[in-house]
């Protein structure tokens, strides 16, 4: 009934059903659920998601961490203020806190005050995803995509007296109003789950104590879920550059922007600014964008973005930013200097927020990138301290942080040691056109399985034949030749992220190409192409005699 916590579409059923549960099961007043929570164990009945008293009580037992070893160094006789203290109320932290509370634990979470720009002193309930990542990014993607839709609409008979123009300040004001609404909703979610929210900067002072701006809280378990932050490399003039936080909340629209980086953040912002009619230049160190993605997808997306007017400067690394007398910025690279930028944005990576948390003093091990090292149950080198989400730098995606947070709550408070499962995690790049993918790239599959069948489709979608725009769609299935299992699925084109989700279920479940083929298509859609790929584009065989790199794809369709 409740949608994923990070999803901003907080359901109507959510509010109504919680009310329902509340009135049915909880005759006690909940006017101030925070008040007695940390002190009084019986108040755990106020956790809204407990279906009944007995349910809660059943799970009150066994709160000693239940993973590999039950002992986390906690003194079982000692009374703690909280069963769990979470530092950081982003996707992972909120999920872990809520679920722990649902299992009957007393939980507190601390978070920095709201700010659209993250820093040592600014954050906000909701975290990167809601305030500086997925959500605002997607809202700007929606906004910027309209220019493409206006272009399309001409081909479909729509006409305006003058070309539509975007007013940046209206857009940003509406976006920020939405973020404020969402951060409020997240606070309510925590409140309704009976989690105490403390505003301030948390710091660990001993394995069972957190200091929030001078006030001490004891806890049986501490969870670090402070996330990551964009990182700008130290080159001359880097103080003139902006990062993705700032790019989502600029006072005015860039006229001409340089985006440095070839990862998904760089591509997403390139699409956003290009769609909002800025002149966009992308500088990438390598030959291609999106390192780690399927090679054909990398080529395809760059080509489609170029067609839409984005200029890529490949194998070009920034060396300095120079502010010119007229106020514009020049970017000096290994290949020369490009002038006249109103903005220069770095999308060159993110770093875990592990400084000034007291981790070193506590002996919590960090890896060389500054990320917290954890075991498969998200436990750090200190048994009572745990970590989930981007701060652990595993797979830095909101739904993965949710999975880690959910698994953690189960492990510690539900007597059910649970490892997050990192197999076949789908992901999307909200470039324009967007990418959706799950499983292995062709290159990874060849390395892993040797013999692989590749099915591809590269077509002009129905919409483009009418609009006359040069949009295309690319789809790819990577099939293990020996088992017939679909081990990778990739798409670049309109609606890719929405399309790939269902197929991710199929790939995760280990379904075969034959299973795909046995499914009837939904006509006319782009997605049906994934179940109607009859002829392999090529068969890759490790044995030389079987090598048939044939391009035999027949015309698709009837």
């Amino acid at each position: 009934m409740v949608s994923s916590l990070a999803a901003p579409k907080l359901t109507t059923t959510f509010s109504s059903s919680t009310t329902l549960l509340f009135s049915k099961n909880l005759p006690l007043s909940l006017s101030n659920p925070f008040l007695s929570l940390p002190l009084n164990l019986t108040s755990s009945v106020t956790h809204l998601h407990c279906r009944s008293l007995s349910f809660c009580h059943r799970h009150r037992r066994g709160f000693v961490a239940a993973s590999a070893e039950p002992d986390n160094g906690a003194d079982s006789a000692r009374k703690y203020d909280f069963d769990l203290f979470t530092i950081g109320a982003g996707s992972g932290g909120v999920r872990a806190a809520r679920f722990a509370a649902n299992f009957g634990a007393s939980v507190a979470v601390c978070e920095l005050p709201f700010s659209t720009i993250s820093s040592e002193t600014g954050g906000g309930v909701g975290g990167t995803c809601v305030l500086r990542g997925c959500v605002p990014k997607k809202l700007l993607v929606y906004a910027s995509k309209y220019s493409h839709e206006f272009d399309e609409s001409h081909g479909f008979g729509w006409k305006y007296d003058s070309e539509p123009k975007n007013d940046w300040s209206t857009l940003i004001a509406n976006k920020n109003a939405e973020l404020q609404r969402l951060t409020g909703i997240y606070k309510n979610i925590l409140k309704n789950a009976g989690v105490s929210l403390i505003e301030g900067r948390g710091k660990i002072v001993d394995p069972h104590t957190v200091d929030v701006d001078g006030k001490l809280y004891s806890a049986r378990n501490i969870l670090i879920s402070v996330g990551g932050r964009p990182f700008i490399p130290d080159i001359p003039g880097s103080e003139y550059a902006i990062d993705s936080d700032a790019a989502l909340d600029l006072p005015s629209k860039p006229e001409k922007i340089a985006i440095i980086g070839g990862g998904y953040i760089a591509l997403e912002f390139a699409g956003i600014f290009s769609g909002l009619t800025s002149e966009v230049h992308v500088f990438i160190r390598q030959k291609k964008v999106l390192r780690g993605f399927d090679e054909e997808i990398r080529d395809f997306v760059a080509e489609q973005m170029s067609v839409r007017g984005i200029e890529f400067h490949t194998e070009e690394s920034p060396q300095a930013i120079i502010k010119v007398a007229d106020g514009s910025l020049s970017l000096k690279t290994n290949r020369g200097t490009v002038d006249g930028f109103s903005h220069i944005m770095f999308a060159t990576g993110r770093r875990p927020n592990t400084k000034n948390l007291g981790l070193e003093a506590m002996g919590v091990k960090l890896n060389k990138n500054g990320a917290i090292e954890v075991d498969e149950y998200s436990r750090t080198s200190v048994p009572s301290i745990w970590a989930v989400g981007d701060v652990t730098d595993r797979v830095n995606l909101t739904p993965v942080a949710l999975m880690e947070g959910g698994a953690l709550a189960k492990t510690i408070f539900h007597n059910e040691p649970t490892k997050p499962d990192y197999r076949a995690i789908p992901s999307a790049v909200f470039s324009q056109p967007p990418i959706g993918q799950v499983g292995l790239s062709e290159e990874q599959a060849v390395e892993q399985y040797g013999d692989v069948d590749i099915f591809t489709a590269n077509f002009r979608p129905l919409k483009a034949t009418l609009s006359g725009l040069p949009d295309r769609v690319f789809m790819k299935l990577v099939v293990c030749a020996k088992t017939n299992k679909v081990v990778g699925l990739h798409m670049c084109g309109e609606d890719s992220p929405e399309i790939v989700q269902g197929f991710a279920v199929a790939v995760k479940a280990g379904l075969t190409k034959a299973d795909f083929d046995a499914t009837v298509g939904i006509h006319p859609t782009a997605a049906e192409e994934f179940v109607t790929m009859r002829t392999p584009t090529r068969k890759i065989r490790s044995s030389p005699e079987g090598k048939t790199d044939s391009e035999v794809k027949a015309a698709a369709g009837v």
Partner: protein
Amino acid sequence: MARKMLIDGEITQTNEEEAHYDFDLFVIGAGSGGVRASRFSANYGAKVGICELPFHPISSEVIGGVGGTCVIRGCVPKKILVYGASLGGEIEDARSYGWEVNEKVDFNWQKLLHKKTDEILRLNGIYKRLLTNAGVKLFEGEGKLVGPNEVEVTQLDGTKLSYSAKHILIATGSRAQRPAIPGQEFAITSDEALSLEEFPKHAVVLGGGYIAVEFASIWRGMGATVELLFRKELPLRGFDDEMRAVVARNMEGRGVNLHPRTTITEVIKTEDGVKVTTDHGEEITADVVLFATGRAPNTKRLNLEAVGVELDKTGAVKVDEYSRTNIPNIWAVGDVTNRINLTPVALMEGTYFAKTVFGGQPSKPDYRDVPCAVFAIPPLSVVGLSEEQAIEQANGDISVFTSTFNPLKNTISGRQEKSVMKLVVDAETDKVLGASMCGPDAPEIMQGIAVALKCGATKAQLDSTVGIHPSAAEEFVTMRTETRRVSGSGKPKTNL
């Protein structure tokens, strides 16, 4: 060489191999099913002929066109119009995203229609080439049976050709029908609706099926005033009740005037347009009255009685599980058999026919878990069982998961329209029996879910899949809490 490949699936008529036929297969009707069957049969080595009526957007006994309903008068032109109509809503929504769009936005119906016709002609050409490339011989004209192994094609100039064939496949599809209502000649069907010269500023649509709903959405999206009249309480009979209500609510929200429990008693032509009288005595004058009340199989002029091919009471060709009629060498696929009338199903039937007859592998089409979509605005897509069907078929409990949410895009556009998703799960086995969604991109989202469902995916398998964030589709893998549990014998506890 083709001879050698001729292996019948089941029957053993090896002695007949001696007989000489002009074709191994002659197909009547070059729509989705016919083209697929002939191409695939040719790929198996069969010598194939196919006949089709001359091209025109509006079909009749003597008009058709290579590509068939889907390409010329169905899926493709319809989807083009849906794209066009959806853009109207997009332009509105753009304003909240900071776009300054003229108050005066014009929509030019003729321009879209013209481009639609160009696209259909292009596809018509592609289909002809597909046939040629597969080595299938195409005849233009009306085909009919003369005997169990003989087809006669009447060409445009009236000359008749006669060919013998070892196998004959009937794939003539179906056509929109008008109900017997006084003045029905003043109403149009979906064929004409896809090719209207003037855009209807005010339209009356009669019918509650997917075609009615789609046209109501299309015209409304382009700015028309639309009245949708249907007999039941809700449109889309046969779909999940909860989803039917969502579609109705969304159509109302977008300005379609719904008239439930209403039918038309009379249509008359007036100076101002076409006037309908409803069974409630209400009178509505509109530019266009569309009857979207059903389609009938094209079996009348095929001379089937002469050969003894059996029809059912709706006029559809009766076939067995292999698409074989009661005459062993005469087969039928697609809408003319009135099984599941969808293009991909006709394709499946055509493929399996070719496999059975010329591929040496008798294969039955599998009708379980066929997904489908209604391209209303926003669309509905479903696969598997509705809640009502699940309850009817189940022995044990049915677990229902629903999610109603405000799509992220609407948070800024302010559009008041919720997306709704639903999973129907067998409580005992955890198997997902049905999935449905009404909201933007639903048909695209449902295809992958359909693969999982077809392969018997459990709710736990959906839950173990990580979401793609932020998408609407991720909701299908993050529905944690059961909305309700209904016992198999009981009634669904919906509030509808």
